[in-house]
């Protein structure tokens, strides 16, 4: 075992801390949460300058060729400041899924622009039910005259309005398992209609309606009818990535709270000198540290370990439980000031609610672990 960040990981984390502290303000996040702000192209351009989208892309395709723990170190910092932007979707899900399931042509077509920061990827895989529910898809793709025609509606597609590559799942056969994942470029495709879904916080989401969207045979990622494996992989990556973001957010909430209670005075002494407040803070710190370790283990397991689904489920269950708990204790420690819109604390609470629901809610991951425990 080795709990230290490697030199590379440490470099990435400290660089990210510095950049993000300067660039991500509470107001940026708050305005997005209010639906009044928007995702900013210039800020994302600066992110791409740091070559973060290509961390996982092989060096020969223009990326940094690093592993999940390296991107994980970044995602923790990304989560700590609630940074808005399609990093998880592009750098983790997009790059990895294409790298794993794509053919040579697809690798060469998509990974270099991802690494160069020119391509934003989003998974458009949920429908009325989330993709991890394994319920048969309503969106369908039919192969006619050498082209696939997609129809249906996907929901909860993050950053879809900014994406120039969508990973769209559609039914390609009679059984629930007959599904296929398509690489769809919205710019080149007619018939894609986006509607924003207003959220509490977290990434901006869209409904994606597909009206006779036509793509070529080359747009199939992996094999026709074998899309479930790729979808499961996207969900797995999402769960690990979210857990890392949540661990970073928890650490940040602990720090914010410690700062506040150290300086706020009541009854002639710092609030943080009361044992009840001290124990709240201690409980928060223990929870945040446990989250960090389980999510880092999940990231490491993706790269090198066995049974990543189990490690991811543990990390996400832990994160789903603890981040709302950490935020609740933080609110107790902050008192009324933390209950205001102007204060940043509720942005963490809002993200906690969003993040625990996507890429597998608590009971979904518990059930995965239950199935394994009774096997």
């Amino acid at each position, binding site marked *: 075992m080795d709990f230290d960040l490697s030199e590379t990981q440490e470099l990435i984390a400290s660089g990210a801390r510095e950049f993000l502290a300067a660039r991500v303000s509470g107001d940026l996040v708050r305005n997005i949460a209010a639906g009044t702000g928007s995702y900013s192209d210039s800020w994302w351009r600066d992110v791409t300058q740091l070559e973060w989208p290509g961390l996982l892309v092989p060096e020969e395709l223009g990326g940094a060729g690093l592993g999940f723990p390296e991107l994980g170190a970044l995602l923790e910092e990304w989560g700590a400041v609630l940074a808005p932007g399609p990093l998880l979707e592009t750098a983790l899900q997009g790059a990895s899924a294409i790298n794993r399931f794509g053919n040579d042509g697809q690798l060469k077509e998509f990974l270099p622009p991802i690494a160069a920061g020119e391509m934003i990827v989003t998974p458009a895989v949920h429908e009325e039910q989330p993709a991890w529910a394994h319920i048969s898809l309503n969106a369908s793709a039919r192969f006619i005259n050498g082209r696939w025609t997609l129809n249906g509606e996907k929901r909860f597609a993050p950053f879809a309005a900014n994406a120039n590559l969508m990973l769209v799942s559609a039914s390609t056969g009679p059984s629930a398992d007959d599904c296929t994942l398509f690489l769809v470029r919205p710019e080149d495709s007619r018939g894609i209609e986006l509607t924003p879904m*207003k959220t509490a916080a977290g990434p901006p989401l869209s409904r994606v309606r597909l009206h006779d969207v036509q793509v070529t045979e080359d747009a199939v990622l992996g094999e026709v009818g074998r899309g479930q494996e790729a979808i499961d992989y996207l969900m797995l990556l999402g769960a690990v990535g979210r857990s890392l973001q949540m661990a970073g957010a928890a650490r940040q909430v602990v720090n914010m709270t410690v700062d506040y209670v150290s300086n706020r005075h009541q009854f002639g002494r710092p609030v943080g000198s009361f044992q009840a407040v001290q124990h709240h803070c201690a409980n928060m710190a223990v929870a945040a540290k446990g989250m960090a370790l389980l999510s880092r283990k999940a990231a490491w397991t993706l790269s090198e370990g066995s049974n990543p689904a189990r490690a991811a489920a543990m990390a996400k269950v832990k994160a789903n439980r603890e981040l709302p708990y950490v935020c609740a204790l933080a609110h107790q420690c902050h008192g009324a000031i933390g209950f205001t*819109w102007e204060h940043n604390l509720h942005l963490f609470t809002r993200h906690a609610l969003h993040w625990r629901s*996507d890429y597998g809610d608590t*009971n979904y991951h518990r059930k995965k672990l239950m199935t394994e425990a009774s096997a």
Partner: protein
Amino acid sequence: MRFDFTPEEQRFRDDLASFLNGALPPGWIGPADESRDDHWQLYIDVRRGLADRGWLTVGWPKQYGGKGVFPITSTIFAEQMAYHRAPGNDRFGTRMIGPTLIRFGTEDQKRRFLPPIARGEVQWCQGYSEPDSGSDLASIRTRAVQDGHDFIITGSKIWSTLAHRADWMFLLARTDPDAPRHKGITMFLCDVHSPGVSVKPILNMAGYHSFNEVRFDSVRVPRSQVVGGINNGWSTGLALLNFERSGIDYVGWASRTLDDIAHYARSAPDPDSSSLIYDPLFSAQLVDLKVEVESARLLTYEAAWQQGKGEASPTAASISKLAASEVNQRVHDFAVEMLGMYGPLAPGSDLAAFEGALLKLRLFYTSGTILAGSNEIQRNIIAARGLNLPRK
């Protein structure tokens, strides 16, 4: 010992429920946002309708516009109002300053201030906390300086719910800066429209305007509007908090949301079962919360029962507030979680379950364990006054 309502209580409960079902817009999900004019109008209409039936102040003595019934009935009232997420329950008037005036007010004050509350014609708000005085209320710095028959008030109050809609505020101000901190405080009644009062909205974390900061710039208040005696505001002010402190609103809110989410689960699809309600991981959490809500409800009714016997135990009220505010948070957190990816969708999204109300409530009820004496303070009270644990 009995655990059911009397026939009169049951009838009151049913009558109130049917009044509310008629008074609220069809399909009302709530909660009200009183900064919206349509919701504020609804608030006024419901408050007036309740007053017309004598229900708004049902627990008050008859001579002041109440029905003089046992506090159990007031508790039923508050529970039903909360269960319906109904606006119009002016708890600052009916549950806080009203009972305080009945106990500590002068005859003039009672005659002047109580009837308008009972008739549902005025709105009150509270001026206790200040930017630097939260849990430590005795550290307030708002000054009131005597000037002839008046006092001149200067300072700042914060977290004043509904101050932007209020006619009157009861507030604590320091009248003797040289006295020990608990000894130099006085309670005043202040017309919010007086010259020198300015109300600044504070947006809450659920994204709407319920709190305010209220500034007093040499505001003149006649001496006749002192409640409970000059420099006696600490004990008057604490007595008022004890009138306020009850878990009943939380119990009503929590029960409603549990019913809502159970109803939702009956038709919500579930990957593993015919519907979410048959998913044991869902229903096990649901029933655990039901047990806790029932426990909090009984604790709350017991506190009201004791109060009705004239044994107003600060501990019973603290226990009720503590238990109820915590289970209410758990219930709303559970509800939003069980809505899955639809849970965090915001009001305004066409796909948001319950029009986003449960999310809004989940965020709003974060305040329940903080306001009206944080739950840490409640535990201190239970330990010190209920269990007589040593202070040092």
